[in-house]
């Protein structure tokens, strides 16, 4: 077992929990979106830690590819969520 790998993976778990808690408890939609992004980052940290093989060794490329696409999907989903938020607020202002 690699200490580095364990340290980073456990931090990933903590970040996932922090993000989930924020997404469930925050009142503001924008901050919920940020919280979901934090949670995603936790998952990414976990995956990249699992891929790590130690200093000087090539890591597993499959989780890297997963996280790479995950980052791009996360930003477009965030943009969609922000557009939804804007529309919701506009509708509320009209009432």
């Amino acid at each position, binding site marked *: 077992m690699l200490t580095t790998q364990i340290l980073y993976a456990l931090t990933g778990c903590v970040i*996932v929990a922090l993000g989930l*808690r*924020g997404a469930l408890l925050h009142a503001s939609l924008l901050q919920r979106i940020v919280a979901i992004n*934090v949670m995603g980052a*936790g998952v990414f940290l976990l995956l990249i830690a699992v891929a790590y093989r130690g200093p000087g060794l090539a890591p597993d490329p*499959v989780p890297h590819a997963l996280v790479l696409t995950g980052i791009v999907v996360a930003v477009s989903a965030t943009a*969609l969520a922000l557009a939804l*938020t804007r529309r919701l607020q506009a509708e509320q202002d009209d009432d």
Partner: protein
Amino acid sequence: MNPTSLLVFDALLLLSIVGLAWASLATTDARRCVILFMAFGLVLAVAWGRLLAPDVALAEAAIGAGLSGALLLAAAHGQPRPLPPESTNAPRNHGAAGVGVVLRWAVTLLCTALAGTLAWALLQVFSSTPHDMLPGAISENLAASGVSNPVTAVLLNFRAYDTLLELAVLLSAVLGIFALGQANPGYQPAGPVFDGLVRWLVPVLILTAGYLLWVGAHAPGGAFQAGAMLAAAGVVLRLAGRSRIGLPDGFVLRIVMAAGVGVFLLVGLALLLLGRPFLGYPPAWAGALILLIETAAMLSIAATLVLAFLGGQPQSTGVKAAADRQCEGISRC
């Protein structure tokens, strides 16, 4: 190398990551939350570098620390300014204060349990002997993949299906954004200082995009990072108050948006007609086909990300110019 001091470095890096995540979610001020989240992205980019994941670090530097920060900051501008703490608590405390506290603790407890379970599962995985069948298979077949960067080989050859579907996800996200209405209002023209920066930064960003696309075949880089850099050029132009930000108009824009999925599908179907499996490139052609798909994907990703920053369907420049003229005729608007 001295392993203990590297371990100290790791510990401090992780401490800052957890601290930033906690701090950005602990505040109720939208702007503070977003700024802290941007710092979180910056530190994450260093962490990816530390874990020998330079491909991911490139994407995080371009997207996590650049684009999504700009996106969220623009959204936070529209949020109401935070009220002083006394007044924010008042309306909530009316009836359900007790329930609120109980709920808060219950959620915290459940999230802690989730973290514990995840950690337990991970430790189980780590303590068993690693079975490196997948990385082994990749390094055995890398020579036939057409590229020598294993991450690009996974994305565009071994798991090309996933990437095709991912581009479809991006396309549907933009279509969703389009369905929600018009783009955000543009920015006021930048002052001379920022304008001077933009004048050389945009060409450098475009060059960097080209470099990342090309280098992705044999070193960290590729369509995703390159697309993000191109998008950053568009976002910079937008922030500088330019009306033309490199996005084509109308029909051409739609073609660019769909180019990634389209070219991917066309290549896959053409290979089927030639009697090969769907997206099973002949090894001699693999390098060229991957570059072709990656170029189209880069353009689509860039268009998607710029449109995501606009937050809606852009008004075509012709219509907008007419509207502006009309505006000036009536009053100063």
